[in-house]
């Protein structure tokens, strides 16, 4: 229990610390308004051009809600890579290593707290905008509940990907390039720009075999098409990838510790 208590306390203090950035909500409101408006115009044109009112089962309003949620998930994504990079480069990692804490779990807990606050504040804004642009989706309550169930593991999975990249700092000392590639992969292969269902079937098969869709598309899809079978399937896929990537993080971290040579005087 004390093991869980310390990391829960870390997540909580990280969440509270991020309330200091509440002023950023204004910036997010502006960004989301513009981006969702642009998306709406693009998709409106696409629907009109195709002469259809549904693409792969998605109406225009559902696409808007889908995109609102994918933007929330992406915008609340962790800065873990940059933090680990800085910890390694400056030697600040020493502050954590002399304490009875696991560094990866410390980063996970801190990130979870931060991401929860960021997501909540962004989601409030996104829901308001999507409501204005598209009206409420049907079964909003059920969909929102399913999203809340799917989000924690989506956050953990997202964190593990960035953590793996961040641990590259023990070898590369600058992981910015890798981080950019990874974040773009999550955007495209994760379904941030459009549901994976709209990709050609052979491409869908490849994307469904990767973890990115279970971070972004999976939870967002549940908001507009809530379905218990899909939720359970998503949770299993998330769990699978959490185990795979968690194991990878543990192995790479062990190698990193062996290699550690702190910077600084």
């Amino acid at each position, binding site marked *: 229990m004390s093991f869980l208590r*310390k990391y829960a306390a870390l997540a909580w203090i990280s969440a509270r610390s991020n309330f200091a950035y509440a002023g950023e909500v204004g910036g997010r409101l502006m960004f989301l308004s513009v981006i969702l408006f642009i998306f709406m115009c693009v998709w409106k044109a696409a629907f009109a051009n195709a002469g259809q009112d549904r693409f792969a089962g998605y109406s225009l309003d559902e696409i808007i809600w889908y995109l609102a949620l994918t933007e929330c998930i992406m915008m609340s994504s962790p800065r873990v890579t940059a933090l680990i990079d800085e910890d390694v480069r400056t030697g600040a990692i*020493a502050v954590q290593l002399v304490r009875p804490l696991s560094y990866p779990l410390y980063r996970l807990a801190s990130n979870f707290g931060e991401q929860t606050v960021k997501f909540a504040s962004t989601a409030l804004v996104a829901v308001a905008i999507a409501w204005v642009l598209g009206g409420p989706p049907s079964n909003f309550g059920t969909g929102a509940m399913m999203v809340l169930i799917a989000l924690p593991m989506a956050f953990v999975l997202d964190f593990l990907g960035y953590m793996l990249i961040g641990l590259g700092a023990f070898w590369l000392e600058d992981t910015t390039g890798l981080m950019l590639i990874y974040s773009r992969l999550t955007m495209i292969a994760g379904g941030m720009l459009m549901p994976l269902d709209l990709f050609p079937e052979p491409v869908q098969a490849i994307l469904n075999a990767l973890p990115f869709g279970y971070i972004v598309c999976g939870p967002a899809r549940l908001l507009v098409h809530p379905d218990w079978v899909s939720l359970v399937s998503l949770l299993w896929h998330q769990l699978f990838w959490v185990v795979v990537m968690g194991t990878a993080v543990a192995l790479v971290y062990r190698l990193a510790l062996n290699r550690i040579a702190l910077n600084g*005087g």
Partner: protein
Amino acid sequence: MRHAVEVENLRKVYEVKKRRGFKSVKSEVVSVNNVSFSVPEGQALAFVGPNGAGKSTTIRMLTGILTPTSGEARVLGYTPWKDRAKMAFHIGAVFGQRSQLWYHLPAGDTFDLLAKIYNLDKFDYRRRRAELVERFDLGPFLDIPVRRLSLGQRMRAEVAASLLHGPRLILLDEPTIGLDIHARQQLRELIRDWNRREGLTVFLTSHDTGDIESVAERVMIINHGRLVLDETVDSLRKRNTGRSLEDALAHIYGLEMHQAVVL
């Protein structure tokens, strides 16, 4: 006499890559070269040397962050690089340029967090916290976000935070860096007082000779990875009457530039 730290023939060799055109050539750098010493419990020791001497590498081996190339060390009975997690409950560390306090929250919140990290009993924690708040005079600013504190207030809170779990050994890496004279004196007094009252073993690294004179009873100088001096501060002062401690150390460092002075 029990020893808080025992080091025998500690050695750390780094592999460094140098570029020659398109090729990279590996060479070895000996950062710590067969260092041996012991520190009795309750002693306040200053571990000093010029930049690049091997001080930080030695400390990182003693905290278990680095594994030595060869040699042995025991810190409070633990082998640091093998028992780092267990040893962590019994040591504290303050790194002058790296904070453990959460920037946007009051120091008191970090204290509450540390109580959970170190699994402190609630009653013991409250008593200890009250004692530290009183002794370090943190009361006036304990509920103010750290980002609004002066550097002196922040460092007092940092040192207090590192003592919260009742460590038997504390490592202080440049604790007074950037502080004004008054804040520095105040912090030195607190550390010295804690060392004497609680029998806390203090391992100090600092380029500030005022820190050494105020806090430490013993000074060890390391240079080019080797111990070049190990004596009490009093004895060093007596051997260099007419010179400030700063001049005495500069003289020893200067000698080192021209010849190898080995114990």
